[in-house]
């Protein structure tokens, strides 16, 4: 039923790079013909898989009686740990993520066994019939529990410079405080899904909604007890990822593959939304405590800050995530004397994982909270305190981890946005409004963002591509990056089309497959276009160089004299169409396929001390948010947003703008409405959209202005662009601080105590506390 929609008659601009080109799948998406894993035609004999889950947060399994599961009508196979031919684990870094629990469960929802049946409904019904007896063990659920019991998943880390403790005691002003911030469910609209199709002689083909096909391939192979070369993982697109399909897809892919391997039949595992929310990791929640010394202008002289995070039951990516929190606990501010201590707690909850920003938002919210508290303590405009602390000048450009900030532009962004958003005039108007309004109070905040680009695990900063030019001149593009809506495929195709000087419509984009480009890194860390764009550029250049050498020899000119543009190749009087050139090169036996590779230069960081240069460059941004709160109900409303964001020289401004808008809204959800509630028994009580509220269309104000800074990246990235996936997420910190400003206006003095997310309950409590005079 999937008729091909007609191609748009609109001419494709050349060169394609830096143009507003729509997402390559847009025509299919609007027609409903873009296929996600669950839309693939189901192969004959397909089995549907469901998982049995732990009911306890921490317990020994005394017995597991699966007889009723096995005999349920339609059930074809039941698999437990004993049925795994290879390794019972899908941990990405450390092997502590069992596929099926054997004798111990460590979170509610942990996978115990799989049931495969002829229908999905039968598999799900059968999974509920297991009789499991447990011996309950003490469960560590919250950060406070973990702190009290010294429960660490990884050793603490500390970055220290100067004399923070000595300077604290001599500072003119000193303040301490704390802040708790919640986690966040990814809520990708398409839930986790994998379909495994067994091939001959132990081969396995897995269609998987994942950001990390190579890792899924490796973990599936390891579970099957086979070399990686028996497994192909393929992903054409995801219905959203946001970090939630980086490591979290592996469990479901492995289970589908194990069932397919055991039964010889294709197997599909699609999680129900509730199960997805219960079984998959989330953004880490953090608690922050700080002690800060500063001068009369609010300039920080010394800071001692502690970041504690709930990592859940396994290691997953918690090491790198908490490292990134440390790397962002400075944001845009120079901290001469500083000590940052990071605790990574083990709890009996689902293992927390990557989520857009990867610890960066938590580190940044922490320091922004400190700066805001200083401003309220001194009675200054928070913007002036932010400005007083900015990086700048040769003696104020070193981060706590020893990387020099060489590309700082946040000061200019603040100035420009302050004026274009009329920040000062609005601040004055808001003060007048608040003076006259007893119940409704408004608040405004302008906050900057500096986000480091590169995987902090340095070896991951590599990428590969494969380009094939067919003898008719059409081009097939494949690279290791995955498409989750961000438009990566489109951007990379733009780059490749321009290398050959052909129209974008001549470049065919294909699904990411581990048998085309091996050993790829996850599409994560915002680095998708930086890495895959460059690798594809290099592959295309290799082929173009061969074509150039061939035609230059024939024409008797230097290859450097050739120009590839508008579907033609030319040099002075000579001209040939790209298609004809390719045809002739083919006949002359010139190789028309090539791989390309790219490894990010300059980066180098010590894994233990975290000192060094973890990032190739920084991306910057700034946002102004204005809100109104109702001091009788705690309800908040976002009134206006003004954003200025740095994408370098954007590869595709309209796609980048979409990333900025989507990221801000997602960040605003994290900080104002999305609340994860675990009860004392470790059960997630907000496991469906009925109780877990993500931003809706009506939560966004009419006034939502986004401007891109069109300024080339100082570093030699692909066409001097900058990564854009994660940095704008943290622009939403301005919304949270605007709410704090409105709470401050409700009465009282000094810093505002308000944990995130700033739900109506929390806002109301904060208002009450201030009105009762307990605000300081």
């Amino acid at each position, binding site marked *: 039923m999937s008729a091909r929609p007609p191609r748009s008659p609109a001419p494709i601009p050349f060169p394609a790079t830096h143009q507003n080109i729509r997402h390559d799948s*847009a025509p299919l998406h609007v*027609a409903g013909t873009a296929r996600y894993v669950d839309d693939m035609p189901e192969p004959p004999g397909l089995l549907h898989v469901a998982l049995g889950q732990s009911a306890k947060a921490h317990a020994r399994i005394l017995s597991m009686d699966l007889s009723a599961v096995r005999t349920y009508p339609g059930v074809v196979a039941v698999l437990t740990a004993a049925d795994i031919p290879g390794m019972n684990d899908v941990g990405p870094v450390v092997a502590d993520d069992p596929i099926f629990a054997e004798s111990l469960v460590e979170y509610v929802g942990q996978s115990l066994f799989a049931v495969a049946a002829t229908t999905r409904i039968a598999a799900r019904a059968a999974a509920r019939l297991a009789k499991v007896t447990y011996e309950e063990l003490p469960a560590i659920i919250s950060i406070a529990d973990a702190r009290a019991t010294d429960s660490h998943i990884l050793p603490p880390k500390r970055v220290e410079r100067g004399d923070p403790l000595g300077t604290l005691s001599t500072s003119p002003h000193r303040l301490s405080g704390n802040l708790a911030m919640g986690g966040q469910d990814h809520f990708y609209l*398409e839930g986790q899904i994998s379909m495994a199709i067994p091939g001959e002689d132990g081969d396995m083909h897995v269609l998987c909604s994942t950001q990390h096909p190579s890792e899924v391939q490796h973990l599936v192979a390891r579970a099957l007890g086979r070399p990686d070369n028996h497994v192909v993982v393929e992903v054409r697109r995801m219905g959203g990822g946001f970090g939630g399909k980086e490591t979290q897809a592996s469990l479901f892919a492995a289970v589908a593959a194990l069932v397919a391997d055991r039964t010889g039949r294709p197997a599909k595992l699609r999680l129900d939304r*509730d199960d997805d929310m219960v079984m998959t990791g989330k953004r880490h929640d953090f608690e922050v405590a700080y002690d800060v010394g500063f001068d009369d202008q609010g300039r920080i002289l010394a800071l001692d800050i502690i970041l504690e995070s709930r990592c859940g039951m396994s290691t997953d990516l918690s090491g790198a995530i908490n490292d990134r929190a440390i790397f962002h606990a400075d944001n845009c501010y120079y901290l001469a004397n500083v000590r940052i201590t990071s605790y990574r707690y083990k709890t009996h909850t689902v293992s927390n994982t990557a989520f857009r920003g990867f610890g960066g938002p938590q580190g940044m919210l922490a320091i922004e909270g400190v700066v805001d508290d200083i401003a309220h303590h001194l009675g200054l405009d928070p913007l002036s305190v932010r400005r007083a602390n900015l990086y700048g000048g040769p003696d104020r450009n070193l981060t706590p981890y020893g990387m020099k900030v060489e590309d700082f532009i946040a000061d200019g962004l603040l100035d420009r946005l302050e004026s274009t958003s009329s920040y000062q005039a609005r601040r004055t108007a808001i003060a007048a409004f608040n003076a006259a309004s007893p119940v409704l109070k408004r608040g405004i905040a302008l906050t900057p963002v500096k986000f480091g680009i590169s995987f902090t695990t340095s070896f991951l900063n590599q990428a590969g591509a494969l380009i094939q030019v067919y003898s008719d001149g059409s081009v097939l593009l494949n690279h290791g990056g995955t498409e989750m809506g961000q438009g990566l495929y489109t951007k990379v195709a733009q780059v490749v089309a321009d290398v050959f000087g052909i129209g974008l419509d001549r470049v065919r984009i294909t699904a990411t497959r581990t048998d085309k480009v091996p050993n790829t890194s996850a599409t994560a860390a915002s680095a998708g276009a930086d890495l895959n764009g460059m690798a594809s550029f290099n592959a295309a250049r290799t082929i173009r160089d061969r074509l150039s050498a061939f035609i230059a020899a024939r024409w008797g000119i230097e290859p450097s004299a050739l120009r590839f543009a508008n579907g033609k190749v030319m040099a002075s009087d000579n001209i040939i169409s790209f298609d004809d050139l390719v045809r002739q090169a083919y006949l002359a036996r010139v190789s028309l396929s090539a791989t390309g590779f790219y490894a990010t230069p300059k980066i180098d960081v010590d894994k233990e001390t975290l000192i060094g240069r973890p990032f190739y460059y920084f991306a910057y941004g700034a946002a102004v948010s204005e809100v109104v709160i109702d001091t009788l109900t705690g309800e908040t409303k976002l009134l206006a947003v003004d954003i200025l964001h740095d994408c370098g020289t954007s590869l595709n401004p309209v796609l980048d703008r979409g990333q900025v808008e*989507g990221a801000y809204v997602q960040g605003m959800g994290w900080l104002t409405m999305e609340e994860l509630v675990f009860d004392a028994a470790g059960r997630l009580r907000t496991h469906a959209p009925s109780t877990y509220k993500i*931003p809706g269309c009506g939560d966004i104000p009419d006034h939502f202005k986004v401007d891109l800074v069109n300024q080339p990246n100082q570093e030699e990235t692909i066409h001097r662009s900058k990564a854009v996936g994660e940095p704008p997420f943290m622009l939403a910190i301005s919304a949270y601080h605007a709410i704090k400003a409105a709470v401050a206006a409700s009465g009282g003095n000094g810093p505002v105590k308000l944990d995130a997310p700033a739900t109506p309950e929390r806002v109301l409590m904060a208002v009450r506390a201030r009105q009762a005079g307990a605000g300081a």
Partner: protein
Amino acid sequence: MSVAITLTVNGAPVSLEVDPRLLLSQLLRDELGLTGTHVGCDTSQCGACTVHLDGLSVKSCAVLAVQADGADVLTIEGITGPDGALHPMQAAFREHHGLQCGFCTPGMVMGAIELARTARDLEEATIREGLEGNLCRCTGYQNIVKAVRAGAQAMREG
């Protein structure tokens, strides 16, 4: 036990025997292969599964297939013309970048078509209120609102 139902889907008559528990979303996707209707939340919250039932938009995961007996069902596949020509609302979502991952798009388009027909005006606030039942996790809704307005205008003019 199964129940015989007859309905019209995208203009074509359909008769089949269904399990009384079968959802309309499952009927469309699994029995008829109309996979443009997506299932995002399974619990009538996200709107990804929105289709038209006798001209009104419904969340097909919250309707039983037997409830559609005798009804006229229109899905995203049915609004594209037989020659592949896009409906003005589809064209507007494409032109105004009203999508990223695209998973919410078919439901958004179906919801927006009804909104365009019934809305008192095309003010931004009206559009935002009308789309409250459709969640998008990617776009931040800005381009969706633009697309809906443009699509609705095109529908009214065309």
